[in-house]
């Protein structure tokens, strides 16, 4: 899928995990490695012993099974393989428990951001009234507390690089906190199945310097005014989540592609048709269920109040460029 904001690759990064940019990383990654290597050692032991036995005691011409009463008990062995694993298990539990405790208790001086999840977008609102879609701008080395709720069904806010995850529930608030340890763009996934657009419900955590964050707060988080309109539209396309459901290469996704539609006529569910012009695009953004293109479901959420006029003009200009 095309995601124009380039989030840091999850596949790259040393080791099994994406790069760790979180204060939680040491606990989580360390614990994983401990269990992994412990398991590998134990597993190799099991394989080696099993293989040895199968080879040494295998039925073959001339093989005689060692005589004598079969050993069916050995207190020493049995204790050895019950008690140490139990102790290890408790140790692992404790390690995970301390990490979890850290994750659960959000710091009092954290910077709070409201998160609202709905099918299929992430909305962010800051204490100063800044609103953002799909892109969560935060300052580095600062505890951020996300106070979240969903508008429809269960969702889950997951940022692999930050090692955080928390379900987002309708009619209830859940919290998750983190502190990013370096700047960069990091992938947000929805990770509680929520319907057709579940895999498209992505976003970016944009970690910036504290100075840049202050500036962004002051600017109201608006898309760069100095950009030409079609570039504004291109930015909105990815930053505000349109990319989740509309392609620009002609392939239909959850919603119709934007490629080559300007000036054409769309047929709608329930009859009727209209030309794809400025009014149609604006209506589709504000009241998407008024006209649903034939072959598609009425699943687009309304962006009323979420995009300003310039951003809508930008989208219109951008669509015009997609021939």
């Amino acid at each position, binding site marked *: 899928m095309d995601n124009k904001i380039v989030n840091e690759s999850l596949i790259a990064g040393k080791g099994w*995990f994406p790069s760790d940019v979180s204060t939680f990383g040491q606990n989580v990654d360390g614990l994983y490695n401990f269990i992994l290597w412990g398991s590998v050692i134990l597993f190799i032991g099991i394989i080696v012993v099993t293989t040895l036995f199968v080879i040494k005691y295998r039925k073959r011409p001339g093989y005689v099974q060692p005589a004598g009463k079969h050993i069916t008990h050995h207190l020493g062995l049995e204790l050895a393989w019950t008690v140490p694993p139990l102790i290890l298990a*408790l140790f692992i*539990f404790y390690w995970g428990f301390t990490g979890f405790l850290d994750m659960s208790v959000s710091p009092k001086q954290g910077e709070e951001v409201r998160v609202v999840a709905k099918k299929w977008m992430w909305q962010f609102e800051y204490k100063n009234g800044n609103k953002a879609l799909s892109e969560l701008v935060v300052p580095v080395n600062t505890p951020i507390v996300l106070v979240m709720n969903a508008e429809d069904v269960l969702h889950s806010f997951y940022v692999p690089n930050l090692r955080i995850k928390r379900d987002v529930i309708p009619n209830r608030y859940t919290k998750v906190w983190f502190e990013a340890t370096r700047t960069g763009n990091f992938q947000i996934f929805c990770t509680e199945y929520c319907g057709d657009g579940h895999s498209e419900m992505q976003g970016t955590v944009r970690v910036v310097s504290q100075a840049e964050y202050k500036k962004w707060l002051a600017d109201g988080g608006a898309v760069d005014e100095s950009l030409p309109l079609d570039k504004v539209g291109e930015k909105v396309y990815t930053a505000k989540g349109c990319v989740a459901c509309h392609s620009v290469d002609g392939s239909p996704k959850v919603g119709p592609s934007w490629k080559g539609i300007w000036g054409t006529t769309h047929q709608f569910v329930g009859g009727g048709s209209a030309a794809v012009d400025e009014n149609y695009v604006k209506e589709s953004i504000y009241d998407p269920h008024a006209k649903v293109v034939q072959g598609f479901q009425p699943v687009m959420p309304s962006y009323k109040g979420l995009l300003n006029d310039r951003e809508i003009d930008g989208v219109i200009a951008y669509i015009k460029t997609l021939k």
Partner: protein
Amino acid sequence: MSQVAVGTNYINATKGLKSWLTTLDHKRIGIMYLLFIAISFALGGFFALALRLELLNPGKLLFSAKQYNQLFTLHGAIMVFLFIVPSIPASIGNFLLPLQIGAKDVAFPKLNLSSFYLYLFGAIFCVYSMVAGAADTGWTFYTPYSTTTDTSVISMTLGAFILGFSSIFTGINFIVTIHKMRAPGMSWFRMPLMVWALYATAIIQVLATPVLGITLLLLVIERVAGIGIFDPALGGDPILFQHFFWFYSHPAVYIMILPAMGVMSELVTTFSKKNIFGYKMIAYSSLAIAIISFLVWGHHLFVSGQSDYAAMIFSLLTYLVAIPSAVKVFNWIATMYKGEIDIKAPFLYFLAFLFLFCIGGFTGIMLGSLSLDVYLHDTYFVVAHFHYVMMGGTVMAFLGGLHYWWPKMFGKMYSEGAAFVAWLFIMVGFNMVFFTQYLLGTKGMPRRYYSYLDQFQPLHAFSTSGTWVLTIGFLIMAFYLVESLLNGKQAPDNPWGGLTLEWKTQSPPITENFLDTPIVDSDPYEYDKVKV
């Protein structure tokens, strides 16, 4: 003393479809179950092939997002409810249990037949759901998505509800059978470990399944009448659904694994010609797993919004349940020490289980730890984990048991060579599909995703190609098993040299199982007392 004509067995004793459809013979019921369980596996497998095909590349290949969501829902629901929960108990268990305890039948043969028909009836509902707007909720039916989606949730959940009763009645039957129908001399600690495993499984079936039943009923009524118990908009709580659902579904996974562990004990003793190491520990560990399994359901809810205190308790208890399983593994390995190991097809599956279940188990340790689970929950890591334990564990043991008791069930031998080839394909294919998914998971790839980031494509494509290798393995298996029925060599009463009671009667057994009721005067695996 049973009077039986020479050459008569339970298969040819009476003829005609009706005699099978109205049978009260546990063996015939077991075989009928086997047929439909195999069909369910093929159906669930077909959906798996389809969904993995779609995942070859990130974009749309054949299916829309909604269709993909239906595919993974159907794959999960069919595999869990129609295949794996009944798998070993209803097919092998039904056939084997009376034989292993020296009885003529289970305690309630008519109830047994009812269980079978309930299974079919439930299956019909599920199939109907498939063709009438299949559910797209995931097999876990989480609310509020499941109460608001417009797909056929009700027929699928009613199907699962009915299947639940099939499972409950089998559980009741097995508990009473094991308590009341053992041959003279077979005390509790002279029972084969397969019987202990079926007993522990039956306890879980009986206690856990009713809770699922009510949960699904509440879900149906929520959809129909908007009762509001799970709907946040009406004052209900969607997390309550998750608690109810997992209260059954966690013990359910032990319904899946315990019979498999029972099979493992049978295979290792027979194919090592050795007495089991630690009989009582294995027996007790089955009961311990059954009991503790009811105390850990919250480890599916670590990030769901349950209280942190609850999460901590559930994590601690989750580690407790790992210990009895580990004890069993070590006991099986110790059993092979100084044995005489016959590497036949059933034993290949014993080895497969050992290898794959350990991997699955270790990754379970990872998922049980709180902070690590926060990261791994709802990613492909979980998918890999449960496939390793359910398929690498239960299915391998199921196949091992099938190959072990096949001569007893049908009186025919299959080709060892073909079995080995199929096993190879299955082992390779399985690891290709699912080991890759551990790597996807640790890199953050979420589950139930229709499309994905380009960077994940190589791993996804590799995983998908593994499904084709797996399929070849199963096709080879289907071929040689059917071939054995048509042209296979006649099986002797005891082709493997087993000591449990089923091997002391003919292959296939007569309807009454034994000519004379066996009198038991020894432990089940006393190979050191047997002079070859």
